[in-house]
């Protein structure tokens, strides 16, 4: 196991090590809210971060398993491609923004714009999410075990949103949809695989009404 102590080692040295490593088990001590910790990793390393991180932790993550034993600042796992990022605490705004794949698990709450423009990532939040979450979401799933703030799924293209608690106002073109057996199954699988203790049957599903982005031949004259 490799240990980086950010009180003495630089974030740049840590990230370079992660970019060079093909496999490793690595612990990061004293993150102290620093930015860009474990960014751009492209191999199956396991990174365990012992504390709170600042902006853009685990950005562009590929293959790696990153665990943050604390809170994450804005933009955690931004543009995640694959692998897993797990946050034991809360995440600040735009967690998992534009993520293309992989899994983001937030064991606490996420604030505004969680999963904004998500393009395939699965995001599971054990707590609640703030306003404008899944804004312009295109693909993937956002699972919220707590409540969701206003304008959930505003201007959503495709993507599945599951919420167990209350939601504020739904965003433009986001509607409640039927929870089919297939959706229930995939939600239950996601909850099990991420180790989040919640009953899939207690969730409601939301998604796109497909009125905002679809070409509608009846309205051809309006375009």
């Amino acid at each position, binding site marked *: 196991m490799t240990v980086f102590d950010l009180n003495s080692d630089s974030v740049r040295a840590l990230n370079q090590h992660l970019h060079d490593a093909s496999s490793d088990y690595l612990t990061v001590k004293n993150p102290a*809210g620093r930015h860009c910790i474990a960014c751009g990793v492209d191999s199956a390393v396991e990174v365990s971060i012992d504390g709170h991180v*600042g902006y853009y932790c685990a950005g562009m993550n590929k293959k790696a398993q990153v665990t943050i034993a604390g809170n994450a600042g804005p933009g955690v796992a931004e543009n995640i491609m694959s692998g897993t990022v797990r946050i034991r605490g809360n995440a600040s*705004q735009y967690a998992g923004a534009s993520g293309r794949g992989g899994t983001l698990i937030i064991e606490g709450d996420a604030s505004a714009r969680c999963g904004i423009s998500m393009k395939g990532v699965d995001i599971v939040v054990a707590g609640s999410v*703030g306003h404008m979450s899944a804004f312009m979401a295109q693909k993937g799933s956002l699972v919220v075990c707590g409540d969701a703030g206003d304008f959930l799924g505003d201007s959503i293209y495709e993507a599945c949103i599951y919420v167990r608690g209350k939601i504020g106002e739904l965003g433009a073109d986001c509607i409640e949809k039927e929870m089919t057996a297939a959706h229930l199954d995939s939600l239950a699988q996601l909850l099990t695989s991420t180790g989040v203790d919640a009953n899939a049957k207690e969730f409601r599903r939301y998604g796109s009404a497909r009125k905002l982005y679809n070409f509608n031949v009846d309205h051809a004259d309006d375009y």
Partner: protein
Amino acid sequence: MCGIVGIFLKNEGLQPELGRLLAAMLIEMSDRGPDSAGIALYRDPVADSSCKLTLHSAEQYDWDALRTEMAASLQADVKLDVHASHAVVIAAAQVASVQDWLRAQHPELRIMSAGSAIEIYKEKGPPREFVKQFKLHELNGSHALGHTRMATESAVTTEHSHPFSTGMDLCLVHNGSLSNHNRLRQKLRGAGVDIQTDNDSEVAAGYLMWRLREGDSLEEALQRALTDLDGFYTFAIGTKDGFAVLRDPIACKPAVMAETDEWVAMASEFRAIAQLPGVENATIWEPLPATVYTWGRS
């Protein structure tokens, strides 16, 4: 981009350390605001019959001559402490009479703050320099706000730096940008609020000053600000007994808060709070949009 920090000491035993803690937080926010820095510090409140003002001179100044002249003219005891380009004046007189006298006799001086406990220091230049210049490590106090500025909409000068005074023992620091400040500035000037620069944050400070003068409580004034101020903001407002925090409803501008048995702190980023003792055991959260948070000694 700008950096905001605030700290309120619940444990009075930490008061001699306030400046040192504030300095560490401020320096950590240098990346967010490398062009100017400023603080508002609350300490040693004066008696009701006296007042405390912070003055600033752009040029070298004969502060001792000012003290002598002021004491003779106002026929009052005047104490004066120089801190780099600023001086703190404590006069055994009513604050309005001291302000009137200064404006009439010494228009070359800028009144940075007025009240009984507040002191405001601000200067252009990197935060680390500011901390050294004003010997922040030596300053005590009960609570303080700090700001590191990265100017986006008006000039880099001491006058454009934060905090801005918003009335007796009140001040404001801002991270963000307001979009309706020109119209609002005109309106406030019409209502007799003295706004000196083209800075948007000074308009927010002037707005609060106006609302408080009209009889709003700080909480009411901040609630009303949510309707009247258009733009992006995280505000921290220093009061005689504590501080308040407000984020706009969209909440793009970051803010983190933390609390232990010893202190309450807020900052643009956690890394500023990470400098504080006992942070490992702090309760940490992100303030909600459009929600007023206040702390104070009751």
